[in-house]
């Protein structure tokens, strides 16, 4: 060892970090993951809304709820295949369920999905049976299914499915996902607004009663406003880590898709629709719902991809792990 102590980085005036190599690894996941989060959230949200409509609503509202359960089942169905497709070794998907380890959000999510999917399918089957869409013996079985129990179980599972995905991403060391603790809230809110939108879309097309449509539209507005509020707080807390989302690579799909299409357009359309009735209003609300659903995908996808970008941001990683947060 020399007699001269080596100079420190600070004395040399060089920036921290090893060249520009990232501190953390870029996540290996691809589009299947945000697609699954989106559909899972939508299914959970739709199931919850439908259950609420059935439990608290009028007879008219209940009619809409029936469609809602079918929508939820339809959205839940592709979730497992998407999740499996993204695995490095899809033929080992069942290893997810070889242990129960809620400490791992991924494990918790796998169990939740494994439980939610049959519940929502059964619930949809019950509706199909009621609507006379099932052949005799099947319809008899479907009628036996305990609806309130399924509603309760499905609502809890659906809520977990809608809410865990943001926690899953947050419980990592990826700057954009982990910096703020609100990502779970953002995804939950987005699941809510898209869930409402999905039910509303079905309702508007199936000539549901105007009153119920208005209820859904108002609920959608509230959910969207809530989503914007949580999202705003999330972006504020994320700071520099959110650069790839709000400034760089994914800013266009984020602002135009997730915020503009997914939130602002539906808000305006729902305002315009107001208490009005008629075919035009139904069309307005259908468009609003489609925008909201599409925007919800944009939100998941942009946050997911921008998070992968932020993994390459060495300074953001250091910011995440400093005692004194910069």
């Amino acid at each position, binding site marked *: 060892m020399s007699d001269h102590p080596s100079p420190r980085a600070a004395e040399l005036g060089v920036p921290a970090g090893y060249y520009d190599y990232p*501190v953390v690894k870029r996540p290996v996941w691809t589009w299947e993951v945000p697609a699954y989060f989106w559909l899972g959230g939508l299914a959970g949200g739709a199931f919850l809304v439908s259950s*609420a409509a059935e439990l*608290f609503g009028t007879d008219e509202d209940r009619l809409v709820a029936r469609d809602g359960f079918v929508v939820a089942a339809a959205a839940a169905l592709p979730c497992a295949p998407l999740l499996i497709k993204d695995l*490095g070794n899809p033929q080992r998907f069942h290893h997810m369920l*070889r242990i129960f380890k809620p400490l791992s959000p991924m494990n918790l999510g796998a169990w939740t999905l494994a439980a939610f999917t049959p519940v929502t399918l059964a619930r949809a089957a019950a509706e199909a049976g009621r609507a006379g869409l099932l052949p005799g013996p099947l319809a008899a079985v479907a009628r036996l299914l305990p609806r309130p129990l399924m509603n309760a179980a499905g609502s809890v599972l659906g809520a977990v499915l809608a*809410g865990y995905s943001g926690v899953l991403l947050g419980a990592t060391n990826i700057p954009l996902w982990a910096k703020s603790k609100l990502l779970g809230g953002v995804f939950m809110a987005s699941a809510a607004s898209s869930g409402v939108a999905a039910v509303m879309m079905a309702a508007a097309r199936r000539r549901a009663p105007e009153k119920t449509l208005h209820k859904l539209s108002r609920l959608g507005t509230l959910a969207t406003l*809530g989503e914007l509020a949580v999202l705003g707080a999330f972006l504020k807390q994320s700071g520099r880590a959110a650069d790839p989302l709000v400034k760089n690579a994914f800013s266009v799909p984020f602002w135009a898709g997730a915020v503009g299409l997914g939130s602002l357009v539906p808000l305006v359309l729902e305002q315009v629709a107001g208490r009005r009735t008629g075919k035009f209003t139904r069309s307005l609300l259908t468009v609003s719902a489609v925008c909201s659903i599409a925007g919800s995908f944009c939100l998941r996808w942009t946050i997911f991809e921008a998070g992968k970008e932020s993994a390459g941001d060495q300074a953001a990683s250091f910011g995440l*792990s400093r005692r004194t947060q910069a």
Partner: protein
Amino acid sequence: MIDAYRRFMNIEAPPAPQRPKGFFTDTSLCIGCKACEVACKQWNQLPADGNELSGNSYDNTGALGATTWRHVQFVEQAKANNSRVGQRWLMMSDVCKHCANAACLEACPTGALVRTEFGSVYVQQDICNGCGYCVPACPFGVIDRAPKDGHFEAGRAHKCTLCYDRQKDGLEPACAKACPTDSIQFGDIEELQAKARRRLADLRARGETSARLYGMPESTEAAEVGHLNAFFLLLDRPEVYNLPEVPRLPRKTMAQRYAISAVVGLAFAALSAVAFGRRSG
């Protein structure tokens, strides 16, 4: 009960824990020969990652990854004004830290990642289904999934095993064996820690005032991930070596995250109930 189940399922009892073993990597001794990197690849039969000149000093392999489990950094730094005063070349052989609280292990949904009887963190290749969750969980960017279309153990997570196979046979890991300067030392973790403290005191006494240990039980970086079973003696701030100042353990904030998510969910449930309340509309 459990024993009967084990017998019935033909499950082996896990090996009895031993005194934890680990690495002390003393970067002040490293000469950058990369013998460790090659010895590791050879013993573990890991493929090369590609042949490209990085332009970053003599480091052309860049970082740890699915098929690079030891990696030697060349921190070549000087003042920006081209004076050669204070110019330095720090070498550091990086490796999986085998964290006491390992983020990768906690994230793993299949139980493929386990703590071995030697205290190291190990990926069971017959269990891992390549979900990829350990990859972003690790605060050090160590573990990675091999490409799904690659030739090497495709689609599964890989990282340093602390030469579990060699340890089973009472051998030291290949990198420590190959290191000609003893920059990489392998042994009983408590003994290594004591050795490291002595070495640090010695270096400090000789004027290396910015030398420090990274990953000791008492140091700040252990706040969340605990002590590191592969710890380091560094000659500058951790960030100079791309090491986080206080590596985060995702579990620490998980309850809050779930709570926030639950609050939003409950709020929505309440809103829906109100929206459909019989009196409304």
